[in-house]
């Protein structure tokens, strides 16, 4: 790399390196896959449990999913921060985006439950925001579409009263909005081109 450079070559080198640096994001697929699977299972467990005992509100699966997901995310985040080769300012923005989402989610959850309402729809709609923005920041279209899917699912859940259909819509949004983009992102992070 010690050969003389023309101004054109210098500019091309700068552009190429900056472009590479902008694509240096932390590995995020773990979070989408973990939360996607846990929340889908929580929704299915709630639905099954409600069929067995329809008189009681069944929040336990959500509590378990939240605790397990939180613990796994904290463990993975700490492990990754020790291994990370590069610190990209966009990573910091994505982290704050998700942190603010979790705070808003907990506030919506508690205030809605205190008022005796169902937080499922507002949380589904809210989930679209960080998913969509993360996809835009990373320029990763499956996550952008995943965010849009959460919005579509949230609106559809509002329009249908049947619990079974709402469950199906939520699970579909989780699978297509979190799990599928998570798998595609993992393939990208591992350097595997989609088939």
């Amino acid at each position, binding site marked *: *790399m*010690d*050969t003389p*450079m023309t*101004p*054109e*070559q*210098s*500019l091309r*080198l*700068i552009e*190429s*390196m*900056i472009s*590479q*640096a*902008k694509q*240096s994001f932390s590995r995020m697929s773990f979070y989408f896959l973990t939360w996607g699977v846990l929340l889908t299972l929580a929704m299915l467990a709630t639905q099954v449990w409600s069929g067995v005992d329809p008189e009681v509100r069944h929040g336990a699966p959500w509590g378990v999913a939240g605790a397990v997901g939180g613990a796994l995310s904290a463990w993975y985040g700490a492990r990754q921060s*020790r*291994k990370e*080769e*590069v*610190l*990209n*300012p966009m990573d*910091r923005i994505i982290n704050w985006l998700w942190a603010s989402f979790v705070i808003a989610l907990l506030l919506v959850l508690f205030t809605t439950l205190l008022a005796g309402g169902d937080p499922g729809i507002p949380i589904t709609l809210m989930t679209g925001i960080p998913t969509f923005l993360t996809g835009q920041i990373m320029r990763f279209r499956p996550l952008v579409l995943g965010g849009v899917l959460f919005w579509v699912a949230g609106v559809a859940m509002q329009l249908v009263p049947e619990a079974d259909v709402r469950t199906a819509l939520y699970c579909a949004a989780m699978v297509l909005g979190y799990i599928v983009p998570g798998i595609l992102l993992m393939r990208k992070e591992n350097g595997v081109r989609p088939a």
Partner: protein
Amino acid sequence: MAFAPLDPVLHNQLRLAIVSLLVSVEQADFNHLLERTGATRGNLSVQISKLKEAGYIQVTKGLRDNYPNTVCRLTPEGLHAFEGYVKAIKDYLHH
């Protein structure tokens, strides 16, 4: 018209590649720079030292998982020099 002379510290492919990478990130370690630039360990090490001597980058040596780890980050002087270099290159190209 007289052109501003190009900064000799930056007008080198590997040093320019290192600084260009560091412009867009907060910090990057030696292995990341090695992978992105495709340089040899020895050459990268030499060019990092030259950039450090010029005050363009800050180098922090530490341990990660019990292995030596070198982390580089651009200094304000480095950013200023890079901006000046880009401006000078554009002047050359536009005239």
